[in-house]
């Protein structure tokens, strides 16, 4: 794992925002590194711990707590389907199943509770997330950084078409 100079400069700058306890910079650093590398390998966890004068286990505790922090690379395009109450009632489970079908993601071995799932070709990955803050227009989802409301199962193939 090679941390580019500009990323490290950005990280060092971020740490200065927490003058009382460097430990508080752990989450921002995790986000920065995940944004850059796409996921957090063990080496990244150790690197952050060292940077903040902590033990790796202190960082691992955070990584395993927050679902948005990944220890495995996601697919080329990452789909997030909201399953908080109003979206769930509006059909987010069916939506996730449909995405999986069209994106060729095998979810036979995993229940609906499984974390992140990936297609065999690595093109798509999908996960359930909690509220995306558009409860009046469920089910909602995000593909990469794009936000979609009132998504119907019929729309799914066209949506995926946009992300190649």
């Amino acid at each position, binding site marked *: 794992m090679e941390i580019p100079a500009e990323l490290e400069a950005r990280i060092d700058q971020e740490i200065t925002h927490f003058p009382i306890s460097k430990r508080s910079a752990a989450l921002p650093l995790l986000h920065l590194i995940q944004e850059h590398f796409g996921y957090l390998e*063990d080496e990244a966890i150790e690197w952050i711990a060292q940077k903040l004068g902590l033990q790796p*286990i*202190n960082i691992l505790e955070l990584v*395993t707590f927050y679902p948005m922090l990944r220890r495995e690379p996601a697919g080329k395009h990452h789909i997030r389907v909201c399953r908080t109450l109003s979206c769930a009632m509006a059909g987010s489970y069916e939506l996730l199943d449909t995405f999986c079908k069209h994106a060729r993601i095998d979810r036979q071995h995993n229940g609906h509770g499984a974390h992140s799932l990936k297609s065999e070709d690595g093109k798509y990955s999908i996960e359930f997330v909690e509220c995306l803050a558009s409860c009046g227009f469920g089910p909602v989802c995000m593909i990469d950084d794009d936000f979609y409301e009132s998504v119907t199962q019929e729309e799914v193939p066209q949506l995926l078409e946009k992300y190649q």
Partner: protein
Amino acid sequence: MSAPTELLNVQIDGVWYQFKKGTRVIEACAQAGKFIPHYCYHPKLSSPGNCRMCLIEMGMPKTGPDRKPELGADGKPVISWIPRPQISCAQDITEGMGVRTDSSLVRECRHGVMEFLLINHPLDCPICDQAGECHLQEYSVEYGTAGSRFLEEKVKKPKRVELGPRVTLDDERCILCSRCIRFMKEIAHDDVLGFASRGSHTYLTAHPGKRLDSNYSLNTVDICPVGALTSTDFRFKMRVWFLKETKSICTSCATGCNTIVGSRENVIYRQTPRENDAVNSAWMCDYGRLNIHYVNSPDRLKFPQVREAQGLANVSWKTALAKAGEELKQFQRNSVAVVASAKMTNEELWLTKKLIDSLGTVYHDVVPRAGQADQLLMSADRNPNTLGAQLFGITSEYPGSKLREMTEKIASGEIRAVVALGEDLTQIGLAESDLKKLTALIVVGILPNETTRNASVLLPACAFSEKRGTMINIKGRLQRLNHATLAPGEARDDWEIIRDLLQQLTGSNGIYLIDDVFKEIAETIPEMTGLSFGRIGDHGVQLVEESEDAQPVAMTV
């Protein structure tokens, strides 16, 4: 002089008490004789307040419009009770605080917390090492229910996780109290443990690639209130309720950690730390703790032996001692040397000094054992009683400084007889051929080695758990060893062997009890005036004022 500690008034279950400022509520309750059940609280660690078992009702003095406490008919403050239960472990007492430890709300809380803690617990008590000393088990009897209302599936977690070379974890039994995490962080200063996947699947783990391999790792097993952390060494060996517990001290270094030896039918199964704030707090190192298995070794020396034409032959004690006496009488003062051990008790060393004096030799010393000291408990001096050996004049300020001269004289043939007490002479630079040159080699020992194999008289003795006696630790504290197990075969207590050797030389008689040896010491050595085995007690006696910067004794080899 510092100001006297402020005392605060606290009402516990309707009775007013005074406690020192800074006392945690749970501790104040304990001092008032009210036990509060708890899991995560440990007196030597910080209080995270995460197990919720120590919930109590708490109140603060009611204040009037003048901001002064309202007083009741009894002249004591009227307490205004907080409607929600509070944890008692993470809060210090305050003036006028009220506590209810046994109200119906408190009982209901304990009941509820127990029910939650048991939801995912495997209830595998029949095969759990902690059974019999498990707080979950204990409080289930007192605060739990016989039946379960839980209909769902229990959460599955990792089992048989080797956290380190000496600790095995069963994550399903863990109640997430975090004592082990805090111990490793706050006491052992090796922050390797943590909780991963916080939520309903939280589990204890070390960071991938890191191991719980600190020399203090087994203390986490001691403080684990349930059977989650188990000692790989003790695991599945013995039900704890069969263990006879004998208070003793660890003899693996000069710190002399206070211990409990757990034995059954003459076999030692484990050694655990015993709290003594003057010595080891509530901890001990893994090295000392596990250094017990040699006691159970099948190779232990069991019978007195003398050298005959074909080699060593078993004989009676009477014959062996007579032979030893006969041999020793042949030698002039400095043609005999005594190699004693700083692992011997004071009583043994005292008699050894008498033996040395009656032989009239200047060649006597102990064998130093130097190691690396750590910042916690382990001393650089790996002998448990160097100070005793110095006090009784077996060795000098520099233990082992005479050994070189002695070994040279043994090798050159000038010294023709050696009394080796608990030490292997090949460890101090002598070759087996040097030992063969000796006319007499009288050996007191417990396990076979080059020296015992070349003995002219071999006298089998006792291991630390098989005898009574006293030792002086590095800080000048006199402490007691107690008798936990019996010596194998015909092996005898070391002090009796040395007394008998002395009798062979001087013909004197009259010591039948080790207590009498100690009495003699107490009458002669000013530092020990007025002491007896009873007065030393379970926590020892400080012989010299302890100085903050006490340096380990100098070591030379």
